[in-house]
């Protein structure tokens, strides 16, 4: 058999097996969502099983529509906040917000950096997390946790790891419901939610933030960014 015939045959086999073909459409991995069998209580497992399609929709929406935001593995699920004694289950989302290093942002006090991130992302994430009216009305969903993480500063020496800042915002269900129905504004949510902060791995304890309305997420577009076919963003 000639080389060219052998190559042609190899291509046919490769295409048939799916080894060669057009580039696959980008899609988020389900490993961003905590698997059902990873929960430690029946309540958690039941919620995860019931709302799995909604969690996938949440994952895909952020992946496609907020491409500068990254979701790590097992960052979406019905977790129990560590400070809560009983088995209260909060729909939780942890995101890493990619930003250019900014000296002026780095010079702000940590409360102001946290306030800026809260203002920009918490309201928008709450709306995405509660697209399902069924989930919002479910009595076994006790609240919502939004964890925001960003680069505090770039490494200044070779081999030095980057340090992230993190805030965890715990929003009880009644507060979220009031916000989503327009009865309270995002500054009220900042007042009524519990917010914890971390500088790298070091706890900063509870933070008191002053938030404001920020429409960045609904107005910012990545230059020349093209959505995958069939994907739409609000």
């Amino acid at each position, binding site marked *: 058999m000639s080389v060219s015939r052998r190559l042609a045959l190899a291509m046919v086999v490769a295409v048939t097996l799916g080894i060669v073909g057009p580039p696959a459409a980008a899609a988020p991995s389900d490993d961003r969502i905590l698997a059902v069998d990873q929960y430690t209580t029946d309540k958690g497992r039941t919620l995860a099983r019931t709302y799995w399609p909604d969690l996938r929709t949440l994952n895909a929406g952020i992946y496609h529509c907020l491409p500068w935001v990254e979701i790590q593995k097992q960052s979406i699920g019905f977790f129990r*906040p560590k400070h809560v004694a009983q088995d209260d289950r909060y729909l939780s989302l942890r995101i890493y917000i990619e930003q250019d290093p900014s000296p002026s942002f780095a010079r702000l006090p940590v409360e102001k950096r946290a306030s*800026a991130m809260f203002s920009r992302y918490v309201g928008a994430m709450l709306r995405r997390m509660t697209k399902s009216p069924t989930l919002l009305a479910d009595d076994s969903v006790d609240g919502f946790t939004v964890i925001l993480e960003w680069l505090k500063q770039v490494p200044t020496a070779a081999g030095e790891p980057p340090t992230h800042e993190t805030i965890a915002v715990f929003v009880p269900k009644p507060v979220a419901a009031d916000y989503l129905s327009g009865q309270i504004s995002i500054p009220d949510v900042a007042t009524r939610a519990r917010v914890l902060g971390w500088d790298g791995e070091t706890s900063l304890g509870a933070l008191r933030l002053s938030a404001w309305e920020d429409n960045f997420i609904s107005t*910012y577009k990545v230059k020349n960014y093209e959505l995958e076919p069939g994907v739409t963003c609000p």
Partner: protein
Amino acid sequence: MRTHRRWGLAALAAMVIGVSGCATSEEWATWKAHPTHFASGDHASFSMRNREGSAARVTRNDITRARDEAWWGKPITVSQEQILER
């Protein structure tokens, strides 16, 4: 080249942070007024550089690739277990 640019930027950022004190009220006002303060522009230019001769467009895969290439390394950050229970 990429590494040199990144360390150059890091050194510049560190120098500016070291020289200056707290943010001024003007800088704070600037942030609140929606500055262009995110990395996505870099992704766009990265992708366009890699598509010479074709129309400039950035796909989700381009952004993922750019992010992987610009990875700073494993960060120091709080673990999920310190915040949430499964």
